């Protein structure tokens, strides 16, 4: 009971802070929209119209994946400075299980991601995408699960770093490769085999693919989803469980 309560308080605090920091909200939503409308519109000139769909529509699930990736990992990594300089310093000496702190922090990342995903998703009519109400709902649900898995992955990463100076390392060597190898910008099936294998080891790949599965009609052709929806969901569920477990173990050991 104390632990459920602790999880609730951690999420509540994070949401309160998030809503209050308008600049954070604006910049976190600007990034995916810039990619969608600047990169997407530019790239669509290079992609044959016969490939199956306009490029902007193809990268839409990938851009949602990007939104989740950035906001979830940023949110999780804040555990580093919460621990060094903030909230967690008091919380760690409170009678609460370490795993509850990890779950609370993962759910915080999930909640913050979900808000951003919802806002970006609602731009779908602008790019000529047609989605049913059910598809929107399903996309949000999948987004939530992906966000939880990536947030807990972020905590695993955070336990390896002591200070926020390592932030650029995480950005360049984890976040960017994860994004480009997720099938967000180009179909995994068209990649050279080494990169294709790397993509298959990337948890975000299945998240992006699941989002493609819920949004795209085409089940064949170069731009169709790379895996089945059930495989995607299985990997997301399993990886979430593994990441939460690893995060709890590493976090406990860190002391």
């Amino acid at each position, binding site marked *: 009971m104390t632990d459920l309560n602790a999880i609730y308080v951690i999420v*509540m*605090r994070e949401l309160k802070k998030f809503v209050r920091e308008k600049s954070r909200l604006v910049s976190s939503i600007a990034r995916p929209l810039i990619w969608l409308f600047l990169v997407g519109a530019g790239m669509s000139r290079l992609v044959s119209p016969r490939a199956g769909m306009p490029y902007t529509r193809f990268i839409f699930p990938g851009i949602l994946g990007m939104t989740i990736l950035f906001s979830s990992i940023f949110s999780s990594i804040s555990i580093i*400075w919460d621990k060094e300089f903030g*909230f967690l310093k008091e919380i760690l*000496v*409170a*009678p609460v299980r370490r795993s509850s702190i990890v779950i609370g922090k993962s759910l915080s990342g999930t909640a913050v991601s979900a808000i951003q995903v919802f806002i970006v998703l609602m731009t779908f009519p602008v790019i000529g995408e047609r989605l049913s109400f059910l598809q929107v709902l399903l996309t949000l649900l999948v987004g939530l699960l992906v966000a939880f898995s990536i947030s807990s992955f972020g905590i695993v990463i955070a336990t390896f770093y002591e200070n926020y100076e390592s932030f650029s390392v995480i950005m360049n060597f984890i976040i960017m490769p994860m994004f480009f190898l997720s099938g967000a910008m180009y179909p995994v099936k068209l990649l050279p085999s080494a990169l294709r294998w790397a993509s298959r080891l990337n948890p975000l790949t299945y998240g992006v693919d699941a989002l493609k599965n819920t949004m795209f009609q085409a089940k064949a052709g170069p731009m169709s989803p790379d895996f089945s929806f059930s495989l995607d969901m299985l990997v997301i569920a399993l990886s979430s469980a593994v990441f939460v477990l690893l995060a709890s173990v590493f976090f406990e050991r860190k*002391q």
Partner: protein
Amino acid sequence: MLRDGKAITVSGITREFGPATAVDGISFEVDRGEFFGFLGPNGAGKTTLIRMLTTLLKPTSGQAIVSGFDVAEDPARVRKHIGVVPQAMTSDLDLTGRENMDIYGRFYGIRSGERKERIEYLLEMVGLAPRADDLVATYSGGMRRRLEIARVLVHKPALLFLDEPTIGLDPQSRRVVWELLKKLMQGDSITIFLTTHYMEEAELLCGRVAIIDAGKIIAMGSPAALKAGIPGNDIVTLKVGGLTDEIIGAMEKLPFVHKVSREEDSLAASVDNGAENLPQLIDVVRASGGAIVAASVHEQSLEDVFIHYTGKSIREEEARKVSFLIGAGMPQRLGR
């Protein structure tokens, strides 16, 4: 628990970090209801010790019983009874004072009605009630510190740990925090464990002080007993033109002079009855060919106790540490 009335019992506690020993076989006891302080320079091992006592760091060897439970064997039980105010300021800048306290209270599972009442009472006590609904970002350092002390009291801990509570504060804010801590001791039967490198803080607040240097306790007792334990009762400081070793030698021969230390052209002598004996000291300096530029007499402080045992001053490293800590609130706002 606490059958023997001891809030903390530490025996031979040691913590090593690789080849370095931060805390080196320390033993002491703190009675329930005591205000106990650890005084020592930066890097003496104070924070390491507090981290072990508050279950955040496992001792390499030795044992610590806090609130009746072993910190290494039973950390969860220890955590139930303690409150900790860490050295860095940890209140959330983008939440109000009241919200900061409310989140903390909820975290400890305190019921809504009781929580509101307690928060109201504590905000009033620390003098923050009129500013309770302003963002902490608009608070001064002293106000933030008072908020953090109020916050840690929400769950009524029996034992309160404060790590350098007034570091980085201006003298006036420091005094306000001191008054607050004194007030705390008068009320509930709370035990306070404090670390500091400000001797006036230890002297003013603590019933008993352990002086720590290089991971070891070098002296322990009430401030008065510690001061009585070193020879002399006053320090005479003389600034002397043409200071020579002969002058120091002549001074050391006087019966009421215990020790003379020199720093450039100044002397500090620990003496009995400094005010009465000052004229005679001046005569001796003049007779040995020195010219008195300035003279002062002050009562021995814990600083002098520290100098007596270690041969160095506590103050030396102070400036550097403070500038580091003032920056500590910053990272909360980066990288979002």
